[in-house]
């Protein structure tokens, strides 16, 4: 945008600067369909990555051009989703940094970073960060070393620091926290290091821990019998991606990861609450219901993928649902008040289950467990979808999923717990050359596939739906593209030059719509020319 710096425009610019950043809880609740803001990691508490903005549409998307690009200092691929509020964009960079960018200039108004500790443990994941949470006048970010840090939104100055978990035994924070009514909820990584998973809530003002929900029950608690002997102590079930929140039901929904170790020989049983979706009361951290997608998982099929809260008519009934595409290859609909299984259909090639029973429990086929010479199973260890988020268009009722089509040979080996080292006992050899990817859309009413757009490799990027009738997506090869949401036909693409491992988002500033995505080591912002 070209501007002549007359006295009038200078004054306007000066007036804009002192605007107070005050993202209240009610503002996040009230703005799920956005006034052009993007207030949570997944765009709203519903986590459907749908932008109601429609300035960029099927008709004009071919005119989309880069408006600016920002390359954060430090090396490493960005997995951040920007948050936009009050004229600023907040992004994170690897490993421990936050930047507040001005929406017009693309330049940082402040930067915060904490050098990664020497010897910091990252067992099973990269030195990445996926984004911040925003509440009141603060920005919240997790660190690789397992701290939750509150920063002043105007300056980046630290307000408090809470030690969430011990990195020396493998815990870390890579996901974006979730801010709910005076509380900051944060999950942890470390499922390959034999940690015991949990979800924490902290007082947004002080950093005091309010509650902790252990994702694995200890002896005496419900479902403790789903673990033998001492296995619960190192059973994983981490909480490394961001959950969702229903302000009416007052329930928070959070996915859990694989049981540890991957090799299942030493942990007979269902291993609750691994590979599950949890519905918790955010006031107390009390479990209201759970749904386990993959009981006794032996393929690392985490259930951390984003739970999308959607309202739709299914089988003739208006229902409040959760839609989630799982690493295990099935796309699930659950009742979000009760956790009742509604529907589950395969969205990618899978060879481990003949289907799901009436309660959604998989009917597991024989010979799919890892063995000494390699068991060929689809999907691969990284799953049929991963952290690349799905999206939902409430207008069309289409669920859009980034799909990874890949099989692997799964080998088992003895696992041995030693604090701060890998605790897996399993390896895979992926069938890389035949592997492909896709962006697929499914009709929520019927579960039928509406279209599939092919990708040359299994994607890590997320997707974005917009009211302009578009689906934005990215590829490992650097393509950022827009598809016609009705047909899946490509309408526009830009080669960013770096693999895309983050989810796109959209916002508006000064009446103009923008689409942003992190690609490689840079953040790209696009607008119509």
């Amino acid at each position: 945008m070209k501007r002549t710096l007359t006295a009038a425009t200078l004054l306007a610019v000066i007036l804009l600067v002192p605007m107070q950043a005050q993202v209240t809880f009610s503002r996040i609740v009230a703005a799920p369909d956005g006034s052009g803001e993007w207030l949570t990691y997944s765009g709203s508490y519903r986590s459907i990555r749908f932008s109601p903005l429609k300035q960029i549409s099927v008709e004009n998307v071919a005119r989309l051009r880069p408006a600016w690009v920002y390359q954060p200092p430090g090396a490493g691929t960005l997995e951040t989703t920007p948050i936009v509020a009050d004229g600023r964009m907040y992004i994170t960079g690897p490993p421990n940094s936050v930047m507040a960018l001005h929406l017009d200039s693309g330049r940082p108004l402040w930067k915060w970073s904490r050098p990664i500790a020497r010897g910091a443990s990252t067992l099973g994941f990269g030195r990445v960060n996926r984004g911040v949470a925003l509440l009141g006048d603060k920005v919240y970010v997790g660190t690789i070393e397992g701290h939750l840090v509150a920063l002043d939104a105007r300056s980046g100055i630290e307000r408090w620091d809470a030690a969430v978990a011990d990195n020396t035994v493998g815990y870390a924070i890579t996901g974006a926290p979730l801010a709910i009514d005076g509380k900051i909820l944060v999950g942890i990584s470390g499922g390959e290091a034999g940690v015991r998973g949990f979800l924490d809530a902290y007082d947004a003002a002080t950093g005091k821990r309010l509650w902790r929900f252990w994702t694995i029950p200890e002896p005496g608690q419900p479902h403790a019998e789903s673990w033998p002997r001492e296995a619960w102590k190192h059973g994983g079930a981490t909480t490394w991606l961001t959950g969702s929140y229903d302000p009416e039901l007052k329930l928070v929904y959070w996915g859990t990861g694989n049981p540890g170790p991957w090799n299942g020989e030493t942990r007979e049983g269902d291993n609750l609450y691994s590979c599950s979706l949890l519905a918790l009361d955010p006031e107390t951290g009390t479990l209201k219901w759970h749904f386990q997608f993959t009981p006794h998982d032996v393929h690392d099929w985490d259930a951390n993928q984003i739970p999308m809260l959607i309202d739709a008519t299914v089988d003739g009934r208006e229902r409040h649902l959760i839609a989630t595409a799982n690493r295990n290859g099935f796309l699930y609909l659950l009742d979000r008040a009760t956790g009742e299984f509604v529907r589950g259909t395969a969205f990618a090639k899978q060879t481990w289950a003949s289907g799901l029973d009436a309660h959604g429990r998989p009917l597991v086929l024989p010979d799919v467990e890892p063995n000494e010479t390699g068991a060929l199973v689809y999907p691969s260890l990284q799953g049929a979808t991963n952290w690349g988020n799905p999206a939902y268009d409430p207008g069309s009722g289409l669920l859009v999923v980034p799909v990874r089509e890949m099989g692997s040979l799964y080998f088992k080996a003895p696992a041995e717990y030693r604090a701060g080292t890998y605790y897996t006992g399993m390896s895979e050899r992926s069938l890389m050359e035949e592997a492909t990817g896709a962006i697929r859309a499914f009709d929520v009413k019927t579960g039928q596939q509406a279209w599939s757009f092919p990708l040359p490799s299994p994607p890590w990027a997320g997707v974005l739906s917009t009211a302009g009738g578009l689906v934005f997506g990215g590829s490992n090869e650097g393509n950022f593209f827009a598809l016609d949401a009705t047909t899946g036909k490509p309408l526009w693409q830009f080669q960013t030059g770096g693999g895309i491992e983050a989810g796109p988002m959209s916002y508006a500033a000064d009446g103009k719509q923008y689409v942003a995505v992190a690609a490689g080591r840079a953040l790209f912002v696009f607008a119509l020319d």
Partner: protein
Amino acid sequence: MPGATVAAQTKSAPPPTAADIAAGKKLFAGQCALCHGAEGVGGSGPTLRLSVLRHAPDDTALLDVIRTGINGTGMPPFGYALSDRSVHQVGAYVRSLGRTPSVHIPGDPARGLAIYQRSECTVCHTIAGAGGVVGPDLSGIGAARGPQSLRQSLVDPGAEHPPGYLVATVTAGSAAPARGIVIDEDVFWIHLRDSTGQVRTIRKTDGVRVERDTKGSIMPSYATRFSDAELTDLVAYLSSLRGVQ
């Protein structure tokens, strides 16, 4: 520092027992033999029946290679999958292979060189800086792969090809299909190198179909062009190519 940790562990580790070597052998047979061949005779990966391994001259380096892999080669990391004990057991078994007789490679490398030079191999392959660019550089092929794997590549080149040599056929309407090695493919473009070395760039618009041939090669089979004795000599020559030391 990971290196320091490994060194410390190695020093304090007790010498491997027969049971350790047996456990390592079992793990090796399942996961390592896929590339290194049964009992380490070599396959698409190098033989390990050598007293000194190029990337693992000592035990510390060997354990590190098993844990972290070797950049720029097909050797993946196993540190995420194997316990420390398992890594030591596999290491002990690999060292035991180095004490077994090295694999005897029959044939005459000098005759193999003559066959290589008079045949069309140099059109596509480079050795020591001279030759074609369509196929892989063979300068160090003898150090990277075992003789059985080399023989298979001559007889049935598609059975197993090195990374970066995947073949695809691209069809667009009524035009003649383009077939070649996939140099690069993104969502909207594909670049192929055909058998003449020419780069073909195709935009993946509507109606363009890309078919990967994971068991294909643009190299012809030499199963009938060479006699069995000639193949043996050629494998002996290729096995002698150890690259720049």
